[in-house]
């Protein structure tokens, strides 16, 4: 289960605050996955005291509305990433960034599908730069794209370009994954599927033996 409480002293109207929280949740907590199980209790409650100023922010399109949304996104993404980083049994955080989609929602869907893939997560734990599993998850995400536009990279190491696998230094790529695991750091996967302006991010973690151990022993 994930729970969250967000507070701000920004003066904001009720309707706008609810819309802002909805948007930020979609850009943060709704973009993480540890094990693919949706809890009965997931909940974020966000309170705005309004004590920072007298003038209420009421427009989503105003400068101050955009500024507050950006602040809310930053806090909620930071918190959401920390949940994925602390995933049961995890040795590293997985950050998936998708570019070139038609819109943010499509990019986000692909990113989360990759971050949620058990086979991608297990490969990361095994320090296996398995571009095939990543490409597979991109393909079944339910978003249409031209295979010839697919580019993948692991950190700074390109693995696929224009839908074709690239020669790469397997030891270097595996070392990248190993170092992230040993330092409980971040593995970054970059994906491009076209020339659209939509981009999105998702976060997960690797899948280790410890995940099974923890949940086999946790009585429900």
């Amino acid at each position, binding site marked *: 289960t994930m729970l969250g409480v967000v507070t*701000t002293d920004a003066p904001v109207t009720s309707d706008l605050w609810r819309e802002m929280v909805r948007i930020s949740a979609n850009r943060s907590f709704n973009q993480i996955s540890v094990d693919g199980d949706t809890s009965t209790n997931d909940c974020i409650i966000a309170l705005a005291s309004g004590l920072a100023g007298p003038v209420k922010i009421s427009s989503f399109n105003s400068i101050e509305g955009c500024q507050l949304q950006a602040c809310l996104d930053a806090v909620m993404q930071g918190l959401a990433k920390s*949940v994925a980083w602390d995933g049961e049994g995890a040795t590293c955080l997985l950050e998936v960034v998708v570019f070139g989609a038609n819109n943010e929602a499509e990019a986000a869907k692909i990113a989360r599908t990759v971050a949620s893939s058990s086979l991608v997560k297990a490969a990361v734990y095994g320090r296996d730069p398995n571009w095939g599993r990543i490409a597979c998850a991109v393909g079944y995400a339910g978003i249409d794209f031209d295979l010839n536009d697919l580019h993948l990279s692991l950190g700074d190491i390109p693995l696929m370009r224009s839908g074709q696998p690239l020669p790469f230094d397997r030891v270097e790529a595996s070392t990248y994954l190993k170092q992230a695991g040993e330092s409980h750091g971040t593995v970054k996967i970059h994906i491009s599927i076209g020339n659209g302006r939509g981009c999105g991010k998702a976060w997960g973690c690797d899948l280790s033996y410890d995940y099974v151990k923890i949940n086999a022993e946790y009585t429900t």
Partner: protein
Amino acid sequence: VCVDVGTASICIPAAPIVIPEGPWKQIPGGVTAAKGFKAAGLYGGLRAKGEKPDLALVTCDVDAIVAGVFTKNIVAAAPVIYCRNVLKNSNTARAILINAGQANAATGNPGYQDAVECAHSVAQFLQVRQEDVMIQSTGVIGQRIKKEALLNSLPRLVNSLSSTVEGADAAAVAITTTDLVSKSVAIEAEVGGAHVKVGGMTKGSGMIHPNMA
């Protein structure tokens, strides 16, 4: 973060939270960084094992505009149903009570009444309306809240409320379950010419694939 009493069993480190770069600066404190907020966390005897804090309270000195996003799981926990019902008719809130240990999910009508009773008791202590109190629960599914232990702890919890970083940290620890780290962060930025603070805390380690609306 060490809170309440000094035993090693209740200490967990804070998560290294990386905030995206932007026109803001990270500041100390989590849910208490913004003006008007207090928080507390303590051990109330709800957890099955250990004496890590398991009860948190976040309050606001004024009627705060409230928003919530909740799991779309049809088998929603009692506190989720309770909060959704309250937010249908109310735009403001004054407090959030959170317990760890029992999820109060799949507990039927008695579980829902537990959530209502807990909100009612907090409201009495804070002298606010019952619908001003939100409830969150986490822990073992299928178990009702250890209500007696919770209610007995409320006076101490309310008396522990603080606008300090320590108050925010204590609350962040108290909401954890299998988490290895507590998760709390705050930022400050200029918004529309005013210095605005946004802070938060979260918990979560397993059963994580949120789908909230």
